[in-house]
Each structure stands twice: as structure tokens, then as C-alpha cells.
């Protein structure tokens, strides 16, 4: 069976601006694959090309073994798309939104009715079936969109920032549903700028910045390759001399990173490092030792924070 996505030197330009700058991606069946990157990295542009919803400017792309240029409708018939914006018809009921979308796939009306029952059960919105979309909460709307994307029983789901803007509880509910979908064998492609989301959901991911892939691998492998096991965050008082403090920290850990509000020191043993910091006479107002995350990987690779 061909891979779900096979992209080589995939490029998207808008006029002279290059949004996706020659990326290589291969996604196997059943995988959960993520595009992690900050605003404007080109995640949506890449997803839209893969979703056969935007023409490829340059490079090679096959989705489910087909060329989106010539087989766009066939590809889209087998995908479930959760766009960055919900784009639900707020005037209509939950069920009507799903039914209209289902008819776009030419599903028989009886099949649609059955699937709506199952899917609303799956996203825990059965009792909202006949209610208008408008008054639903953000998390509920997102679940309606997931149900809508599943109406054609897709093999692959494209999720563009599935949980952005939701509160932690709503995000966990969504993650749980997505995990279940992956258990059923559905391939998940998602974009996110939350490292915890990527760590939760993705078997493998690429880190994107300014249209390029700057790193690729499993979440823990990426952390092992580009960060240390632990990170010590030091907050200094407002009157502290940051450059002098950084100079003082030189050689205490593997690497020292000065952010506007704090200093990060990367080390294999955080507690030992904290003792060393105090031994050198530095007196931070707050000290936090934590495990390294993909956020640190991103900072390492681009010199910038992921979420600003």
C-alpha cells in the first residue's frame, strides 16, 4: 500500500512569497503525524496542499498514492478535514450541518442519519442533535467539526490546530477522541503550536519554521537530540544585570539561553546545577527545575519561542 502522504521538495508560493519552502514528508498508514511550528510557519499551507484544496506550486506530492492535481476529488472523498476555523453554519442545527456536508460526498440519506447518531454519540453531543450550533461552546463546536469530518468514514484526518483556543479540559476531551480514532486505524495529520499537544498525540513530527522543516523525529527523540534531560529556569529580580548573570552561569550546564523574563540552563542533572548556581553566588528570585520539552527543541533550533 502506498504511504498516506509522500512529499518531496513540496513548495507553496503566493506571488513571490514562499509559504512552504521545499519540504520532504512521508506519512505511513495509521501514524499520527504532526506539523509543529509558530504562526506563519506554513503549516496550514502545507495541510491544504495535502488536502487537495490548494494547488502545489512546485515539487512532488502524492496523497493515498494519487496526484492531487489530477485526482483531487477522489482524494478529498477519503479525507476528513478539521480546518483551522470551524466554518459551521451557525443558523442550522448540529445534525443539519453534518447532513449537508455528508450529501457533498453523495452518501445516501439513510446512511447519513445513522452516522450522525453514531458520531454525535462519539463526540458526546447526542443531546444537542437538534439544537442550533450558534450557542454551543467553543469546545462543543470543535467536536461538531470533528464529527463533520468523520461523516464520510475517512481513512485519514487532517486536523489544523484542533484545540487552539480551548480550555485545558476541553482540550483533554478532544485529545481523548483523537487518540481513539488513531486506535481505530485512522491516520492523523495535525498541526499545532502547542508542544504538549504534539507530545500527547504525535508518533512523529516535523518542526517547521518559515516554510522549512528544521527537525524531524518522535517527540522524545527530538528532545534527546536537541535538548538535555532537564532544564532549570531562573528568574532574576527586575534590577538584576542579565548579561552579567549569563556570564556568571557560563559552563554550569550544557547551554544557557537568556529570554526576556528568565534564563534557561540546560543540564542532565538539574539539582546539581542549582547547587552550582548558588555556589557561584547568583541569587535568583525563583528557580524551577523541569523536564525538557519540544518548546526547548524549538528554541534551540530557531532561537525563538514557539508561542509568543
Amino acid at each position, binding site marked *: 500500500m502506498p504511504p498516506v502522504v509522500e512529499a518531496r521538495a513540496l513548495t507553496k508560493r*503566493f506571488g513571490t512569497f514562499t509559504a512552504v519552502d521545499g519540504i520532504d514528508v512521508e506519512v505511513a498508514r495509521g501514524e499520527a503525524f504532526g506539523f509543529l511550528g509558530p504562526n506563519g510557519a506554513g503549516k496550514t499551507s502545507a495541510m491544504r496542499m495535502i488536502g487537495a484544496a490548494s494547488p502545489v506550486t512546485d515539487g512532488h506530492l502524492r496523497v493515498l498514492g494519487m496526484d492531487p492535481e489530477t485526482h483531487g476529488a477522489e482524494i478529498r472523498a477519503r479525507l476528513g478535514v478539521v480546518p483551522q*476555523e470551524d466554518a459551521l453554519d451557525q443558523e442550522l442545527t448540529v445534525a443539519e450541518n453534518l447532513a449537508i456536508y455528508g450529501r*457533498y460526498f453523495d452518501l445516501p440519506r439513510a446512511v447519513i442519519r445513522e452516522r450522525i447518531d453514531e458520531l454525535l454519540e462519539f463526540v458526546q453531543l447526542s443531546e444537542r442533535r437538534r439544537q442550533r450550533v450558534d450557542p454551543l461552546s467553543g469546545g462543543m463546536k470543535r467536536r461538531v467539526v470533528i464529527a463533520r469530518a468523520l461523516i464520510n468514514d475517512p481513512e485519514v484526518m487532517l486536523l489544523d490546530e484542533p484545540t487552539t483556543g480551548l480550555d485545558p479540559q476541553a482540550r483533554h476531551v478532544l485529545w481523548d477522541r483523537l487518540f481513539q480514532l488513531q486506535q481505530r486505524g485512522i491516520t492523523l495529520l495535525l498541526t499545532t503550536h502547542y508542544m504538549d499537544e504534539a507530545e500527547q498525540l504525535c508518533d512523529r513530527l516535523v518542526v517547521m519554521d518559515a516554510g522549512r522543516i528544521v527537525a524531524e523525529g518522535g517527540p522524545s527523540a527530538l528532545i534527546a537530540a536537541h535538548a538535555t534531560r532537564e532544564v532549570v529556569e531562573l528568574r532574576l529580580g527586575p534590577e538584576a544585570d542579565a548579561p552579567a548573570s549569563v556570564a556568571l552561569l557560563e559552563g554550569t550546564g550544557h547551554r544557557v539561553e537568556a529570554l526576556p523574563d528568565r534564563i534557561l540552563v540546560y543540564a542532565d542533572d538539574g539539582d546539581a546545577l542549582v547547587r552550582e548556581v548558588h555556589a557561584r553566588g547568583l541569587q535568583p528570585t525563583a528557580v524551577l527545575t523541569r523536564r525538557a520539552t519540544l518548546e526547548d527543541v524549538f528554541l534551540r533550533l530557531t532561537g525563538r519561542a514557539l508561542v509568543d
Partner: protein
Amino acid sequence: MATPIPLRVLEGHARAYRHTWRGTTIGAIATPVLFLTAMGLGLGQLVDDRGTGALGELSYLAWLTPGLLAASAMQAGAADGTFPVLAGTRWVKTYHTAVASPVRPRDLHLGNLLWAAIRISVIGVVFVVVAAAFGAVPLHRGLLALGPAVLTGVAFCAALSAGVVLLLRDQFLAGLNRFVVVPLFLFSGTFFPVEQLPPAAGAIARALPLWHGVELTRALALGTSPALAWPVHLGVVVALLVAGVVAGTVTFDRRLRP
């Protein structure tokens, strides 16, 4: 057999319509009926008393009715070619949802036009029945005249949606109504013959597609001959429709598949 994709889009409109028909259809029917009453009966008395030689010795009401039918169809088509299109691309973004499915941008355009044809026909039938009850037109002639009126409305819908789909802001809308739709409505031989206009303005009015639609509709409603040969009038309206369909195929794609 697979349902042709534009028909799936049409079905979506029909399903959504259950929630929106009050707002859109009642207005579209009430307005021409109000015009018919005020202009046809009220103003018509005055006009008829002064003599209607310029109208071919018809009552003003009889002369006005087909003009109003065609112009209202144009207005309904223009409405369908603006608000729903902006909702689809900008306000609700339902078009972006649709093109993630097997629906292509051009299917949306065609499906929208089929829907507009149905909606304008329904509005037209109600108008003709009311007008026939007023004695403004024989029912069978009024129904016959629906053909060119609906064609005119759909042609305007096609042409306008082809442009509106590219709009990135809403401001343009008010101008479109004020400077395009309303002047067309007033000056295309709807309320008075274009011969009444100064010659230059009359020439402009004759060049506009709505006048040709009005001429066709009026000729069928009254059983007379139109100002120019039938194929000329029909040709202009069909040309507008074809141009709108072809242009929309390109512009919908440009907007929805960036």
C-alpha cells in the same frame, strides 16, 4: 449512479432554506407586490387619466407589471449573488468547508445558480398570481413571461457572484446596491419607457442587459413584439449568463483554492 455535484450543493441550499426562508423570501415577494399596488394602482390612475399613448394605449398597470416582474427577478438574483456569496467566503466561510469535500469551486457556483433559479421562479410565480388577481396580466401570459424574467435574474446572479466571490471587504456591497442594482431597477424601462430618457441616457439604458430582459418579459406578457428582434434581446441576456458562469468558474477557483 453518482449525483451530479452541483445538485448536491443545491440540496444543501434547500436544507438550509428551512431556517432562512422567512427573511429572504417574504421580502422578495412583498416588495414587488407593494410596488404593484402603489405604482400600478395609485400612480396608474393619474397616468391613465393623462392618456397612455407612449405605452401603446395600455393601462399603466398592465404595462408596468411585466417590467416589475423582470426587475424584481433581477433584484432577487442580485441579492442571491451577493449576501450568500459573502457569507460563504467571509462571514461563515461555508464555501471553504464545502471545497474540502469532493465539491469543487465551480460546483458551488453552478449549484448556487440552480438554487437562485428555483428561488426566483417561486418569487415570480407568487408575483404573477397576485398580479393576475389584480387583473394586471392574464395568468397564462404572466406565467409565460416568467421564462425570460427568471433567465434575467439568474444571469445577474451569475455575473455578480463571479465578482463578489473575490471581495476581501464588505464595504463594496452598499455601493453595489446603490450604484448598480437600484439604478438598473429604476431606469431599464421598468417604470417608464426608455424613450422618455434623454437620448444619451436612453442609449445607455438600451445597452444594459436588464432592458433586454424587460423587453422580452413585456412582449410575452402583453403578446406584442419587443423593441428589437427576439434573438437580439435573448442573445444579450444569455451572453450575460454565459459570461457569469464562465467568469465564476475561474474566480471561485481563484478564491477558494489559493
